[in-house]
């Protein structure tokens, strides 16, 4: 029978490196997905996941075996991403120049409507433009599909603060999609 995360973590605490390897293999995909959607660049996301697992290793003894490992890892990954967002003094990937929506839609096909594939692509470009907290909350809640309570726990925020940042993020994104839609509909 396959060991649970908690069992693997207990083994890892005793210095069992194979158990830690299995933990990494099992959870790196989810952590990467979360980091990529927050940070927007593959290289940054991979660095963040690596940093997150180093923190897990350093603090193995702090893991509460009564709670799911995935929640703990989400919290650590989110914190790593937030640290990077705060300290990064870099141009964001996909930062929109004024009028970029118009160019992309009208260059391809003036009469084209937004398709699913475009929606995802645009969302991936809009998310990095949100302020860090709104971005984190939006990604955890709407993209990773965590509940409001899980999001609050992962980010160490109050429920009220999560709701408030979520609304601001959604409002901004809705406005950008609305603008995009209007442009896309132009003949």
């Amino acid at each position: 029978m396959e060991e649970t995360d908690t069992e693997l973590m207990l083994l890892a605490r005793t210095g069992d490196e194979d158990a830690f390897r299995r933990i990494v293999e099992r959870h790196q995909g989810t952590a990467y997905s979360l980091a990529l959607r927050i940070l927007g660049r593959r290289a940054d996301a991979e660095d963040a996941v690596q940093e997150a697992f180093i923190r897990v290793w350093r603090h193995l003894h702090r893991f509460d075996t009564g709670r799911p490992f995935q929640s703990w890892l989400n919290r650590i990954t989110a914190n790593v991403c937030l640290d990077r967002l705060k300290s990064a003094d870099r141009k964001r990937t996909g930062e929109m120049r004024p009028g970029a929506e118009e160019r992309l839609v009208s260059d391809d096909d003036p009469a084209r409507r937004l398709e699913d594939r475009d929606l995802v692509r645009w969302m991936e470009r809009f998310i990095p433009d949100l302020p860090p907290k709104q971005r984190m909350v939006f990604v955890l809640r709407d993209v990773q599909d965590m509940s409001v309570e899980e999001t609050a726990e992962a980010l160490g925020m109050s429920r009220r603060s999560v709701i408030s940042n979520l609304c601001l993020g959604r409002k901004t994104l809705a406005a950008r999609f609305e603008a995009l839609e209007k442009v896309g509909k132009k003949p």
Partner: protein
Amino acid sequence: MKCGRYGEWMLLNRPGELDEKSGRELEQHLAACPECRAARLETNRGMRLAALAAERMRQTQPIPSAGMTDRILSAVAREKRPEPARRPWTVPFLPARTGRLVLSGAAACAVLFFAGQEALVLRRVARLEDRMAGRSSVRPAGTESWTELRSRISESVPLDQDRVTVRRSDLEALVRLYPDDPAVRALAGSAKRLTRGRDGGRVSVPDLVRHLEKDPIASEWVRQMEKRGGKSWNRI
């Protein structure tokens, strides 16, 4: 009428975000407020597109580059597990160097004394385990003795340093890991009985020792864990 919070509520369109009562209040407000109805109409299309984009993203899982596991594990291998910060040894009213000499001497005496005690306890545990050998199907790996195996297991149970307590959930996780070990089962069973309905699922080690009097192996094991002390347990 204040419309501020209704503007926010209109953006909470996923389950669990707005309670039923607030939902009804919002609908009543929208029925009475043309400005908010217009605002909702205006944001509706964008909201639906954003929600659809998020849903499409949920359905696709980005894949990390090949070799990321190895990269993570190599980075982890370069890490040393952090030891708790150590303060320099000092004795009040004595110069630092003399104080360290005094403390070193005292420590050496203590080590010699406790090493003798430890050897006595270990012999007793070994005798008990010989007698109990038929009770368990768990076998130590390679050349590892029973005492070494249990010592390794006990290192995975973090001990609260100040209150000398362990979490019940940690002991129960051990049972799942070593289901055939009667000592592990006895330990978790006692923890379960002792923590029923109090103190957030933690049990004190002295309580465990008292409760396990009837199970010689488990009680000796806990005494060993207690003897080793919380500080070394947490220094994993």
